[in-house]
């Protein structure tokens, strides 16, 4: 197992007066693919938002590569090496594919050429506006944009939701490549249990804003999935 990159310890978070996270603790190591699972509304996306500084934490700690993340400005989170692929893709609609990638560009191994190697469709649509891309292509662009920040940890929030099976397959293949060939730490929020079983190393299950189970994904048996995920 690689060096520990991310550590959340007993994190709580609020939306106004409403508490969304009660006790989240998780760790991600370099080169590890960790799945964050749970039913809808259990706090998966909120957990991602707290890591990125989009939501302030109430108590607990978040450390990335030994550095305290509390009260860091949002742009500093990305500069530390955390790349976010947000739920709903959220590209820059009036920029071209290439511009979407370039705007996020930071020094490192990931370049436009490397991203288009990973997603050849993006290379074919280099000069197209992001708004004119299909949902799957926009998702690829969102992943590519996050990679252009040359992250050490990639956060994927529902990266395959609502996509056609063939596109989902392409995206899972790309995620596998990222893990195997680039040794990138990845924290994935997704409902695709079958794919996660194939590539994830470790899993956390959230329920009502708290971590209720963690372990090797191989240890996630039928009884656990029925109880916590309802599938």
């Amino acid at each position, binding site marked *: 197992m690689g060096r520990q990159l991310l550590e959340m310890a007993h994190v709580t978070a609020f939306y106004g007066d409403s508490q969304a996270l009660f006790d989240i603790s998780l760790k991600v190591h370099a080169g590890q693919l960790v799945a964050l699972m749970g039913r809808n509304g259990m706090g998966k996306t909120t957990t991602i938002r707290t890591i990125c500084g989009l939501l302030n934490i109430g108590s607990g700690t978040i450390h990335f590569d030994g550095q305290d993340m509390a009260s860091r400005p949002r*742009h500093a989170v990305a500069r530390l090496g955390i790349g976010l692929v*947000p739920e709903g893709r959220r590209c820059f609609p009036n920029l071209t594919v290439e511009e979407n990638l*370039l*705007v996020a560009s930071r020094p490192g191994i990931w370049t436009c050429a490397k991203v288009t190697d990973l997603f050849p469709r993006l290379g074919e649509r280099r000069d197209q506006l992001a708004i004119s891309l299909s949902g799957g292509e926009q998702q690829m662009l969102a992943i590519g944009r*996050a990679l252009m*920040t040359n992250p050490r940890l990639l956060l994927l929030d529902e990266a395959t939701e609502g996509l056609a099976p063939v596109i989902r397959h392409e995206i899972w293949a790309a995620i596998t490549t990222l893990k195997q060939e680039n040794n990138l730490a990845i924290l994935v929020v997704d409902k695709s249990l079958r794919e996660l079983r194939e590539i994830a190393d470790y899993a956390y299950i959230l329920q009502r804003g708290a971590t209720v189970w963690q372990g090797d994904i191989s240890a996630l048996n039928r009884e656990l999935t029925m109880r916590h995920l309802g599938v």
Partner: protein
Amino acid sequence: MSRETVVNLVLLGSLLIVPVYARAVDDPFLITLSTRVAIFALAGVGLNLALGLGGLVSLGHAAFFGIGGYTAGILASHALNYAPLIDGIIVINGSRSMPVIWVTTLIVSACLALLIGALSVRTTGVYFIMITLAFGQMMYYFSISWPAYGGEDGLPIAIRNEFPGLNSLDPFQFFLIAYAVLCVTIFLISRLQDSAFGLALNAVRQSARRVEMVGIATFRLRLTAFVLSGMITGLAGALFADLNRFVSPSMFSWQTSGEIMIFVILGGTARLCGPVAGAGMFIILEHLLGGISDYWLIFLGLLLLVVVLFAQGGLVSWLAGERVRRHG
């Protein structure tokens, strides 16, 4: 070459041809009108950087236009009176040299824009509009209540300031100075648009949060754009003061801010030469319709409505026949 580039070249070419023709037929008034278009376009190019590219809807750009004008006026009046501007441990004299005045204007405008921007770019939407408007009005009332430089009556500049190697008193040569400044600024803005800075600014207009998530500090980015924008509009103010040989508090008024915004919207927000088209159309309407009725602004209002409702990319987009792309 894209259609928009052709339209831009035609617009800039037309702006040059009119005074060349006017000079040939000895019509200095037409040259002065063209100079006004060039100066107003420059002010619009400044605002367009903040508004079109950065999405910063400033209703206080008259503050920069006015500060540019007053910088030129104050430096010139001190030079003409042989009275030092600052007479203490350091002695700073006035100047009648345009390059010196421009550099001073750029510095003064940048300082003012930094002050206004540091407080305003943290906000967005209607709050940003109101803060910039408030600063503009503060500058307006400050200029009125400053009797040393004319107060409400304004400040005359007895002789137009000098440009090395040219006779700035000749309307055509002064036009060329203003035109050259406009063209250089447009060229620099085009480079800026294509740079990483321009790209990030364009992105931040679409979503500041998404830009932050890729590691860019949006406050610094927007503030830089606002300062550059204020500097360009300030430079236009200095040229306007030289054109009229007079500066008055009206340069600071919110109507001036509104007019600069109209140049941008008519021509096309985020369009490189949109302000040239907008300022040109404004001056043409002012002189065609202004001769028919004192209420010509009603027609301008109608035209603005038509542009906003049916041609959101402004005149340049309409002429280029392209879909609005950079428009937010």
